[in-house]
C-alpha cells in the first residue's frame, strides 16, 4: 500500500521533472530556463527525500537552488541577457537530439537490464541517517572531504583572478 503511494509520487515527480528539464533546454527565454531548472532541482530534492536521503536533499536545496541558480541569474544579468524571447539554439540541434536520444536509449537499456529485479526496500530506515552520513564523511572519507574543501578554495581564488579587471580592480 505504501509502496503504491510511493510509486504514484515517484511517477508524478518523474513527469514534473521531465517536463521541466525539457523546458530548460528548449525555452527561448533565458530567465525562464533558469527557473525551470529550479523546478527540476526541487524535484530532485523531493526524490532524495523519497529515498530517505534527507541530508542530501536539504543540501541540494541549499546549495543548488539557493546558490547555483542565483549565480546563474547573476551571470545572465551581467551578460545582458536578452529580455524576452530570443533564439538560443544553434545549428546542430538535430545531431544533438540524435545523440541524446541514442545515449538515453543505450544507457537506460543497459541499466534496466543490469538492475532488473533489484528492489529498494523502504521498510528499513536505520542505516542512512544524517548521523551515519556525518560519521562516514569525517572518518572514512575525510581525505576527499578535505580535498574538496581545497578545491572550493581554488575555485574561489580562480574565479576572482579570472574575472578581475586589468586595472586590478575587482568588479563584482
Amino acid at each position: 500500500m505504501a509502496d503504491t503511494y510511493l510509486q504514484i509520487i515517484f511517477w508524478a515527480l518523474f513527469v514534473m521533472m521531465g517536463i521541466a528539464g525539457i523546458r530548460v533546454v528548449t525555452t527561448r527565454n533565458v530567465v525562464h530556463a533558469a527557473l525551470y531548472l529550479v523546478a527540476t532541482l526541487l524535484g530532485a530534492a523531493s526524490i532524495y527525500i523519497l529515498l530517505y536521503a534527507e541530508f542530501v536533499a536539504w543540501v541540494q536545496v541549499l546549495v543548488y537552488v539557493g546558490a547555483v541558480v542565483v549565480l546563474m541569474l547573476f551571470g545572465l544579468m551581467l551578460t545582458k541577457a536578452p529580455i524576452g524571447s530570443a533564439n538560443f539554439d544553434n545549428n546542430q540541434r538535430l545531431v544533438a537530439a540524435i545523440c541524446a536520444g541514442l545515449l538515453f536509449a543505450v544507457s537506460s537499456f543497459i541499466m534496466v537490464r543490469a538492475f532488473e529485479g533489484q528492489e529498494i526496500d523502504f521498510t528499513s530506515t536505520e542505516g542512512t541517517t544524517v548521523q551515519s552520513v556525518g560519521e562516514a564523511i569525517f572518518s572514512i572519507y575525510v581525505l576527499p572531504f578535505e580535498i574538496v574543501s581545497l578545491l572550493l578554495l581554488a575555485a574561489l581564488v580562480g574565479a576572482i583572478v579570472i574575472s578581475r579587471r586589468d586595472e586590478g580592480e575587482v568588479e563584482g
Partner: protein
Amino acid sequence: MPVAYFLVLSAFLFSIGVYGVLARQHAVLVLLSVELMLNAVNINLVAFSAMLGDAGVPGQVFALFVIAVAAAEVGVGLAIVILIYRNRQSVDVEEMSLMKW
C-alpha cells in the same frame, strides 16, 4: 519499488542535459544544462545508496561531494563567461571559434 525506475529517470535527465549542452547557443544556458546532467548523476547515486540500505552511506557521501564540486565548477565557469563577455561583448558559443583552421 524497482531501482530501475530511478535509473531510468536519471538517464532521462542526463540525456536532456546532453541535448542542452550540444544544442544551446548561450554560454550560460550551456552551464545550466551541465547542472542538469550533474543532478541526474546525483539521483543515480542516491538511488543506489537507498538500494544498498545500511551500506549505502557512501552513495550519499559521494552525492554531497558532487554537489560541492558542481558549485565550484559553476563559480569558475561563470567567471570565464563574464570575462569572455567583457572581451568580446558576446556570449554566443558559436562565435567562440578562434581555434578553427
